[in-house]
């Protein structure tokens, strides 16, 4: 009886020792060296795994940062300048200054401006509706309102407004990861340079049709009348494909073009109210 127990103990001990030796040898032989800085940098990153940097996840971004010779072209839009500066400090490199951006919808075609001419009854996804026909309105460039962008947003920054049928982007929550840009089949979302107090001036239209048909389909469409182009003193406005575009890097927020635009396609946001010039003159005359 006791010999059985003894044999068992000895057998198992020998087996355990041999296994331990094999495991040790294998572990030494196949040891993979991993830069400890990768873990350090990954801890800094926001762990959102949103893909905004262009990599599959934060781990891949951390590996790329450690491997890279310079930070040129690498940026975590979610973490922003502070995270990039911290990562640069750990890795002993310099983080280039990248302007923070924010998502902006280049369409303002709510039902009051852009009447619905047909009714879509298929699967309620923009990408399917877009592949089938020009959409519920006569504008084949504008927002279809089925919310592919809302479903793509992982930061709760984008919600469909049921009254306008358009997505509303919250500037505070938007981290400009670009998920909505990819989700929109009509490329209606642009990542624009963020300005002070979230001020924005942009052409809220993507219609590349000529003026007539564009205006017929939507009252707030850009009709490429060139008025904004002429009034702009800073060469910020370009007109291509019957559509005006304001370069956010050149725009100085002089607020001249929104007044000129005959269709109100140029939108200004988060500005103080304009000084009522005409009334002042009237007062002077009266006074």
């Amino acid at each position, binding site marked *: 009886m006791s010999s059985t127990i003894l044999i068992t103990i000895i057998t198992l001990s020998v087996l355990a020792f041999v296994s331990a030796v094999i495991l040790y040898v294998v572990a030494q032989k196949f040891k993979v060296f991993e830069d400890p800085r990768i873990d350090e940098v990954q801890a800094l990153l926001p762990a959102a795994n949103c893909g905004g940097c262009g990599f599959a996840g934060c781990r891949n971004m951390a590996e790329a940062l450690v491997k890279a010779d310079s930070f040129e072209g690498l940026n975590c839009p979610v973490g922003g300048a502070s995270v990039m500066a911290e990562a640069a400090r750990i890795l002993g490199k310099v983080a280039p200054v990248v302007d923070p951006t924010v998502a902006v919808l280049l369409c303002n075609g709510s039902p009051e401006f852009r009447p619905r*001419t*047909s009714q879509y*009854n*298929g*699967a309620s996804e923009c*990408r*399917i509706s877009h*592949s*089938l*026909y*020009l959409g519920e309105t006569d504008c*084949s460039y504008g927002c279809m309102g089925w919310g592919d962008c809302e479903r793509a947003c992982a930061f709760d920054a984008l919600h469909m407004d049921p009254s306008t049928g358009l997505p509303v982007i919250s500037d505070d929550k938007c981290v400009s990861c670009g998920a909505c840009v990819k989700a929109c089949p009509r490329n209606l979302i642009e990542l624009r340079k963020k300005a002070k107090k979230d001020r924005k001036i942009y052409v809220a239209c993507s219609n590349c*049709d000529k003026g007539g*048909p564009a205006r017929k389909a939507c009252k707030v469409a850009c009709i490429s009348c060139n008025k904004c182009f002429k009034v702009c003193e800073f060469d910020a406005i370009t007109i291509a494909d019957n559509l005006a575009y304001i370069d956010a890097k050149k725009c100085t927020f002089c607020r001249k073009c929104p007044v000129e635009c005959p269709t109100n396609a140029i939108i200004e946001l988060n500005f103080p109210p304009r000084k009522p010039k005409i009334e002042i003159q009237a007062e002077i005359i009266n006074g």
Partner: protein
Amino acid sequence: MLKTFPKGGVHPPENKLTAAIPIEYMPLPESVIIPLSQHIGTPSITVVNKGDSVKTGQIIATGKGFVSANIHSSVSGKVNRIDFALDSTGYKQTAVFIDVEGDEWISTIDRSKEINKEVKLSSEDIIKRCFESGIVGLGGATFPSHVKLTVPSGKKCKVLIINGVECEPYLTSDHRLMLEKGEEILTGVSILMKALKVEKAMIGIENNKPDAIAHLTKLASTFRGMTVHPLKVKYPQGAEKQLIKALTGREVPSGRLPLDVGAVVHNVGTAFAVYEAVQKNKPLIERVVTVTGKSLSKPGNYMVRTGTPLSRLIEAAGGLPGDTGKIINGGPMMGKAVINTDVPVVKGMSGVILIPREESVRNEIKPCIRCAKCISVCPVSLEPYLLMTLSEKGLFERAEKERITDCMECGCCSFTCPASRPLLDYIRLGKSSVIKMVRERNLK
């Protein structure tokens, strides 16, 4: 035992309301809109300008490249403008607007009613004439016919298959054409046989058209090498590969063409158009369109000039019923709803169906219950439920492995799904994404 394809298929209610109504010639409209892309392939290029006078049958746009077709003016009059217009595909494309003035035909067209059965042209000349006359497949796919008639070297066509199946519900345009223009169609078939240099032609007709089968069988006995084959009624028998399988028993492999099994398929409407082009020198400027719907007061089959707005057709059929929910271009299974009634008739339009509102709305989408009905009805042995999920999640590489590109978009899966899932909507999306992905990969 009647022939049919072995796997899958559905039996939608036939609703062939207009089967007994003879073809009626539509009066000319005041103006026509002729889109420049009425075929698969590169859009044609206009050869007329604003203000030009054109005659009926005059060429107004020439096909550019091999897979393209000429487009002719279907009326005589003045070119009003060349502009973007909404067409039946749901997109805007360039079209020629012509204001109708009289009905003056170009002199080369033989407008006599006699049937000319003697084929004088050689094989090459027939193919050339088909290209010049802008003949495209009139079954709905609008593939330029001259391309199908040109057999590449190394391949041999053994049998010509004529598609008189008309498996889509509601549509009766091919049925009426077979009854009324039987001799012309069979002469057209003999022209096609000569062009392809084949000795054998098989005409497949579904068994729900016994009058057409009897009529064509009687006529075919006077022509050499032609046989008429009644087929068991089953949708989508009119699909090219399914029809080949039903008639010859040979299966066209995935990603290959009918010519790989020695067959070429043409529609009866195309055979008629080929007859007119070759024997009468008349380009493709009109076609039979079935205008039908349960609440339409005067549904019928109309011979319509291309470019006629749908509103004119509906007017001729008794006006737009108040309860119309959808107007469908083509058959109810594969057709597409149009946006408005200004859309013009194009070469590939076989029918216009006005669906009442209560029938036009889709049912509420419910979760998949894994009943596998979609798998059992798929005629190309795919797994639609899986393809839908893969497309929805954007897993296109896996979808490619599951052979999503073999889908011919017949809609059997969506038709049969008890949970009303939009299977085809997603599969179509996945299919186009996979095709795009493969094209990009091949470019690299």
